[in-house]
């Protein structure tokens, strides 16, 4: 898929309520820009992210999915992100094994103080997805917008 100048990737960012969602708020408070195609969904903890949600996003036309949570060791619920870390590692590995571009999925730990990191992460992720082009391997044609 050639890089399309007009291509505006859809990126879904799942953010845990306590660290990363607050980090995202902070990057707003500091007026740090990142692309508008990043849309945030608030979840209580990174461990709430069901692999089904990731697939659902790809089905419905997301080009990239990123999970942000508290840094390991800092989880509001003590251990949630440790479970999320294992789950996502294995899920991403499975997607990679199926030949889905591994760059389309990412996990990043962003604390409530890391507004700058949040913006930088989203800029970087968005650029990566832009380079990759639209998600064609894990989309549902019935959802494609033509």
């Amino acid at each position, binding site marked *: 898929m050639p890089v399309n100048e007009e291509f505006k990737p859809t990126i879904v960012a799942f953010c845990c309520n306590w660290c990363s969602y607050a980090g995202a708020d902070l990057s707003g408070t500091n007026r740090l820009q990142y692309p508008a195609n990043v849309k945030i969904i608030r979840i209580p903890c990174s461990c709430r992210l069901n692999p089904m949600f990731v697939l659902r996003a790809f089905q*419905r036309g997301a080009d990239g999915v990123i999970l942000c949570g508290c840094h390991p060791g800092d989880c509001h619920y003590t251990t949630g992100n440790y479970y999320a870390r294992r789950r996502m590692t294995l899920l991403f590995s499975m997607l990679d094994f199926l030949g889905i571009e591994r760059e389309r999925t990412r996990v990043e730990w962003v604390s409530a103080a890391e507004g700058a990191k949040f913006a930088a992460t989203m800029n970087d992720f968005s650029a990566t997805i832009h380079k990759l082009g639209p998600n064609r391997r894990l989309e*549902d044609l*019935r*959802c494609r*917008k033509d």
Partner: protein
Amino acid sequence: MKKIAISQLNELFSAISSQKMLYIPADDGAGAAKFTPWAEGISLTDKLNTVRSAKDLFFPQVENLVNFKVEGTKIDIVENRDAAKPFVVFGVRACDCASFDILDRVFLSDPVDTFYQTRRENGVVITLACSRPAETCFCGVFGIDAADPAGDVTCWMDGENLYWRANTEKGEALTESLNLTDCDDAAVTAQQEESRKILAKLPLNGLDLSAFKDEKLLDVFNSPKWAELSESCLGCGTCTFVCPTCQCYDVQDFDNGREVRRFRCWDSCMYSDFTMMAHGTNRPTQKERFRQRFMHKLVYFPNNNEGIFGCVGCGRCLKKCPIHMNIVKVAKALKEEKV
């Protein structure tokens, strides 16, 4: 009777596909055969039959019905049928061909299923006689002659030639458009004789279905054998989905946020959510679901269709059931019960 050399098969397929979409049974790369759109390089399988039956071409597993567009409180209905294209399916075995009669009885009786009807009208069926049946074949039990199948065109193949006989107008029309040589019946008759010798030896030929008479309905239904027979059934849909005569489907909606797509897809009476209703299901355990499948094929269907069983003896379920439970074992067990 016409013929064409086996070495010319590719030319034949090429000629047919220049007029219409052509499907032939080809190897699927995983040790089995499937009906594949013909293209240069695709060749006929040497497998006896496909895993998925020829039913798929007339009654596909998933089929779009209609779309709805919702805006505010307004709902628009948008046609979303797959475009009707004429096609030819080559290499259909006698059993699968017989299954079309059974499907026709369901889909073409009132109210007519126009989706199926369109495909039937558009499709030309070229059958291929069997010369090397499998131990699981029992089409003979249903009066099907594997050495002389029906269809718009019937074909036989020996080491040198493909023999071709048009049976219907559709078949004649196709035949005329092709470059085939006239020939006599000798080679075919000889092959049929050979084939029938083998067919006569098939181990399941003696399957006796006389126990499933109309008046026995309740006896069969209430047989204590069902519990035992269904005990190890996994409740998967393998038998249903490889069956050329199963015709149940479910209608579902898919909402992509901009429109709702209504489609139908095969369903299996073996599934726990088959014919789910508001109150739940009326076949709560696998025993009832299992019984339903065989009651339908062996009792209900013949009762409503002049004694025609809902089975053509293709043997697919015998081969594919994960636990090797099948219509033959069921029929035998229930017959034992009667004696």
